[in-house]
């Protein structure tokens, strides 16, 4: 059987957006760091998934929170696609896209991610403990770790810039190798000459 053409799917999504029938729009963006799934709600990007994340589960999570009218469109997400591509391909040093942390239910976790998004810029890293202190909860390093681990919008809210005080890059939703690659790309960490 013939799959639906991209032209038909884009036209369908465009009509749906025009009629206000859409709870969220998603797109798949090829980047040097793998293919990303990006979901945009009315207030900005609500979810970013890595190549290995199960797509159906991720979209179901968005549908449960925002509503089931989830459609795909490259055209309706063009601004975010361009900004992500430009940043991750090194054409632009700033990544400025609207973000909506609506998928983060706990106020504490939301506060941590807002602080991280606002304060920790490209080229910097911060420890879990330091981010806890900056968020006004100096004893909550472990809870900050959880907030980062559950960050729904990785890369845009830069949880890859949060590292353990004990050294190393620590864990990452996309895997420690990706975290290290992002930090090297941003100049926060010297490239390693040999694996180890």
């Amino acid at each position, binding site marked *: 059987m013939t799959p*639906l053409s991209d032209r038909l799917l884009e036209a*369908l999504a465009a009509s*749906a957006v025009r009629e206000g029938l859409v709870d969220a729009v998603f797109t798949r963006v090829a980047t040097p760091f793998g293919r990303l799934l990006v979901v945009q709600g009315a207030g900005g990007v609500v979810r970013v998934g890595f190549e290995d994340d199960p797509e159906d589960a991720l979209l179901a999570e*968005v549908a449960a929170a925002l509503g*089931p009218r989830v459609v795909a469109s490259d055209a309706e997400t063009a601004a975010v696609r361009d900004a992500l591509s430009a940043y991750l391909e090194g054409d632009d040093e700033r990544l400025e896209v609207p973000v909506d942390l609506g998928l983060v239910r706990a106020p504490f976790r939301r506060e941590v991610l807002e602080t991280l998004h606002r304060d920790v810029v490209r080229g910097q890293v911060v420890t879990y403990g330091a981010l806890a202190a900056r968020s006004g909860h100096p004893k909550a390093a472990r809870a900050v770790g959880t907030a980062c681990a559950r960050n729904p919008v990785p890369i845009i809210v830069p949880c890859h810039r949060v590292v353990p005080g004990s050294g190393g890059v620590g864990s990452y939703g996309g895997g420690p190798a990706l975290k290290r690659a992002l930090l090297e790309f941003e100049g926060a960490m010297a490239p390693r000459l040999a694996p180890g």
Partner: protein
Amino acid sequence: MTAIALPPFWTLVERHGDELLAHARRLAGDQLAEDVVQEALLRALRAYPRLRHADHLRAWLYRITTTTAMDAHRARRREVLVDETPAPPSEPEHYDGAFDTLIAPLSDGARDALRLRFVEDLDYAAIATRLDCSPAAARQRVSTAVRTLRERHHA
């Protein structure tokens, strides 16, 4: 937001889009099939948040596609009727051919009911007069015939 867990709409589109297109081709012919599917999916999206349960979503999409194809057929026929100049012969002929092929496997009674409804574009009162039954029975015959078609194309 809905209380029940409906899957993301696009998951349905990606899972069933190809078979809905094949269904629309059988109903409406190659030329109209894409327009029919696009319109059907837009109608489905309009109704989606009001669904009360997440069962039989594939059958629901087939039903909407069938209705949309029938509507397209009637709209096309109306255009031909109001047009002073003769309509270009190829498209309506192609289209009617698709419809006749589609309903060919049904019983005589079911084919008559569908033709009266979708080709002659009669309302159920008029169909009832022609078939010598009540309007409710006429509606029943049409909907049974449509359902039979749908089930055949599911199989």
